[in-house]
């Protein structure tokens, strides 16, 4: 089956190459993606997949990698947002002979799929799971690409202090590393900059009613200067609505989990929310150009940074293959590990060298006003503010 599949693809590729008048025969390097195309991850993984598709096509259109010896292909398996299915999908992909693997946006299936890739010695990129501990948990073949939680938290904390906020109220959920660790990193950074954490409250993932928490905040005296959370959908929209309903007016800081249409669509409640993200499409920037291309191809009128990091992931892999001069797993891994200032499409450079496979990159802050994102700042946090993963 595997061989048959490869032969077909090769034949097509040869035909194409002949038609183009190219002299060499091409082989395919397949990048696998165990993606949650159904279930709760569908939104995130779907965008990563589309971004990755664009990068693959772009690279192939430019002649492939390693002097045109290889073309790229993307093989996607739906893991239905279920961890066991992620294992099976990853095993299938490994059996198919993929040379690199993208892992799902959520940490659990990312670890599960990561364990398979690690065993097989296949370089992997987490294009949208931002937990900085993830590479450490899985092993030396997994690289984080998205703005890591500690980076986001540090930039948010710097911004908060710059705004003159003295006290912060923090809402976290221990149910995922993202919603648990990011606010804790923020607390750490905020305090290291002289701020004070007024209270830490928790919510549960199967909770959709935030009236009690909102009531508790409304009853605080004095009111906190700022409220920070890494909650995302569906919790963030529910929380912010009920918070405002309870009469709390304090500014709210969020993280890149709320970079979604919902945040922009819920209306006045979200006005004034500032959150961190991987990049912002400033006029004339690379990200704006990418979004234009993305819209032209997929017709989405609101592309999000997940598509850009999916695109970046494939570009990074291609660059690593070029550097390594090989499609062998270990060689690609070593090349990735040595990346310095790779120009990302999100408008920042990416560095892995010396970062324990957690990408060092700029963080962008945006503010929601009238259903639109407005650029606030782009920055790389000071190393001393950045909490250790």
């Amino acid at each position, binding site marked *: 089956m*595997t061989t048959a599949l490869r032969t077909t693809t090769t034949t097509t590729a040869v035909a194409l190459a002949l038609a183009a008048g190219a002299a060499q025969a091409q082989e395919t390097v397949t990048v696998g993606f165990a993606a949650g*195309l159904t279930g709760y991850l569908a939104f995130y993984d779907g965008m990563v997949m589309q971004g990755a598709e664009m990068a693959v096509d772009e690279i192939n259109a430019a002649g492939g990698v390693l002097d045109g010896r290889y073309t790229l292909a993307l093989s996607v398996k*739906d893991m*239905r947002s279920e961890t066991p299915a992620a*294992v099976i999908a990853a095993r299938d992909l490994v059996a198919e002979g993929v040379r690199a693997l993208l892992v799902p946006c959520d940490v*659990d299936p990312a670890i599960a799929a990561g364990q398979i890739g690690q065993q097989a010695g296949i370089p992997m990129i987490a294009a949208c799971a931002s937990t900085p501990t993830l590479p450490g948990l899985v092993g030396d073949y997994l690289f984080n690409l998205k703005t890591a939680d500690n980076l986001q938290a540090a930039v948010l904390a710097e911004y908060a202090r710059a705004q003159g906020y003295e006290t912060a109220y923090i809402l976290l959920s*221990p*149910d995922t590393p993202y919603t648990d660790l990011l606010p804790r990193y923020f607390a750490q950074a905020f305090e290291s900059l002289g701020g004070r954490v007024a209270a830490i409250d928790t919510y549960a993932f199967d909770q959709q009613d935030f009236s009690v928490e909102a009531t508790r905040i409304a009853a605080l005296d004095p009111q906190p200067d700022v409220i920070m959370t890494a909650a995302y959908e569906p919790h963030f929209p529910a929380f912010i609505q009920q918070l405002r309903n309870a009469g709390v007016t304090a500014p709210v800081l969020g993280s890149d989990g709320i970079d979604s249409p919902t945040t922009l669509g819920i209306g006045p409640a979200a006005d004034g929310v500032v959150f961190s993200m991987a990049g912002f499409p400033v006029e004339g920037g690379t990200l704006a150009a990418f979004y234009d291309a993305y819209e032209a191809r997929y017709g989405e009128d609101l592309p999000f940074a997940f598509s850009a990091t999916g695109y970046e992931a494939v570009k990074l892999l291609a660059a690593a293959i070029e550097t390594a001069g090989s499609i062998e797993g270990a060689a690609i891994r070593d090349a990735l590990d040595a990346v310095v200032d790779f120009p990302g499409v999100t408008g920042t450079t990416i560095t892995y060298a010396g970062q324990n496979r957690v990408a060092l990159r700029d963080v962008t802050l945006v503010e929601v006003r009238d259903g639109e994102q407005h650029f606030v700042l782009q920055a790389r946090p000071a190393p001393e503010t950045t909490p250790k993963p």
Partner: protein
Amino acid sequence: MLWAVLPAGFEGPLILMLVSMVAVVGIGIYSGNSGIVSFGHTALMALGAYASAMMTIAPDDKARLLPALPDAVIALHLPPVAAILGACAVVGVVALPVALLIGRLEGSSASIATLGLLLIVNGVLVGARDYTRGSQALFGLPIAVTVPVAAAFVVLAILAARAFRDSRMGLALRAARENAAAAAAVGADVVRARQAAFLLSAVIAALAGALYGHFIGVLTPRAFYFDLTFALLAILIVGGMTTIAGAALGAVLVSVLVEVLRRLADGGTFGPLTLPPVYGLTTIGLSLAILAVLYRRQGGLLPYVEPDEVLRPPARPAVPPPAPARIEAGSGELRAERLTRRFDGVIAVSEASLVLRPGEILGLIGPNGAGKSTLLSMIAGSVPPTSGRVRIDGADATGLPPHRIARRGVQRTFQNIRLFGNLSVLDNVRVAADGGPWSRAEATARAWALLDRFDLTALAARPAGTLAYGPQRRVEIARAVARAPRYLLLDEPAAGMNAAESDALLDLLEGLRRDDGIGLLVIDHDLRLILRLCDRVAVLGKGQVIAEGPPEAVSRDPLVIEAYLGRRHAGDGRGPARSAATSGAPGQKTTDQHERRRDP
């Protein structure tokens, strides 16, 4: 070796299929035998998986991930297979109180309790994050489940399930699934059997959970919640919950379906066809398959009978049937003393007393609604008396549950035949014979002997529910006799029979009295049968014993005739005129009565 030549991509699905087979075979031990759909076994799988994780994750990782664990647990580092078995033992201990509790429940309240178990275990696993990492993934379980390992455990699970199914408890539970009241009436301790079934199935479910954990390598509470529950139930329902073969077949079919759909859903080229990816095809396909089975065959593809039971006719054991000694007359008596029963303020039976001795046949007659069946049910323990006492051979048996009464030597049949419809005729009788003071093989031999005696041998393998009326009655009586009772209570054994059938029945009943020395209490409307059969007859009218004595005397008692037919017949001169309502010609009287009733 099959798995060695499998394309690499198939190994994972194959293992998953085997693991789900262990799970559904395990669930089937409880659900299939008892007929109660369980939503809670996924929770037990979770416990098994987490327990095995505690024993296999490397101590360093455990110390890092779960620092709150006791040092002894952190230090544990067993090889996977040992840990899987250890996890089964741990879950067995944890599940014991659960089994004792849920085993007491039946029907939909039991189902709901299992749903509660699912919710609670999930809540605890999510909540106890210091010990489980909560909603976050617990990882680092060694991936150790290969095809042969999984297959070996499938065999183990099937053997355990089959052993339970064929055991006394398993048979009793299946009987209760078919008819709870009848199972109690033959003396089966259904609660105990259900508790045992739950415990065993919990252990097998834990096994499946642990295997699952060591296949995936990562655990989250969410992985053991509604999605998995639904998937496993789908397998059980499609294959047929009531058989082990059905569960196994379901696992194969559903796994193949999922695998095919999964590949289709990813799109790609299949021969000449190129398909676009269709996301969610697996879920839709699985759901439609379930609906199709539910609409067409509610029992699933292989209901009730294991394939080998169809292929191999039931065999007679080599041992001779035990023959209980004839019961001596005068060796005791069954007494009902001033039994009274009220239902919502209505008095069904009022201070009724009866005595039944071994070797005699007592008839109990009376019009509809007189309270005959209620009186019988009070003696048999299925209706607790409001007041009064029941004594069996001198010992007080008032208020005992039916299966305890049955164990003291009192058996009954039901007005509306209550057989174990989907069990074979042989098994119907065997359930009752199982309770006697003899070995399993002897019990089976006794069941065969009774089939011979009641002319049912040719029907031994037939599901009892498919029999005609007469044979069904005979099965019910054979079943009641199987446990060698001292007293037998028969509620309208001849109802709905034609003359030839009731003549044959008469001979049978006389034989029970003559050859076995059993004391019989017979309720029937067929007075001819009562008069021919009984030594004494008691008449119940409006809940009270209004006459008792030899059949001929009773049949002429005007009180009796009035109770049956009304006053006028009682007065038409065929017996001593004890009734007050007699005078004038019948036609005349009708008018009188009308007048009287219209103008009180």
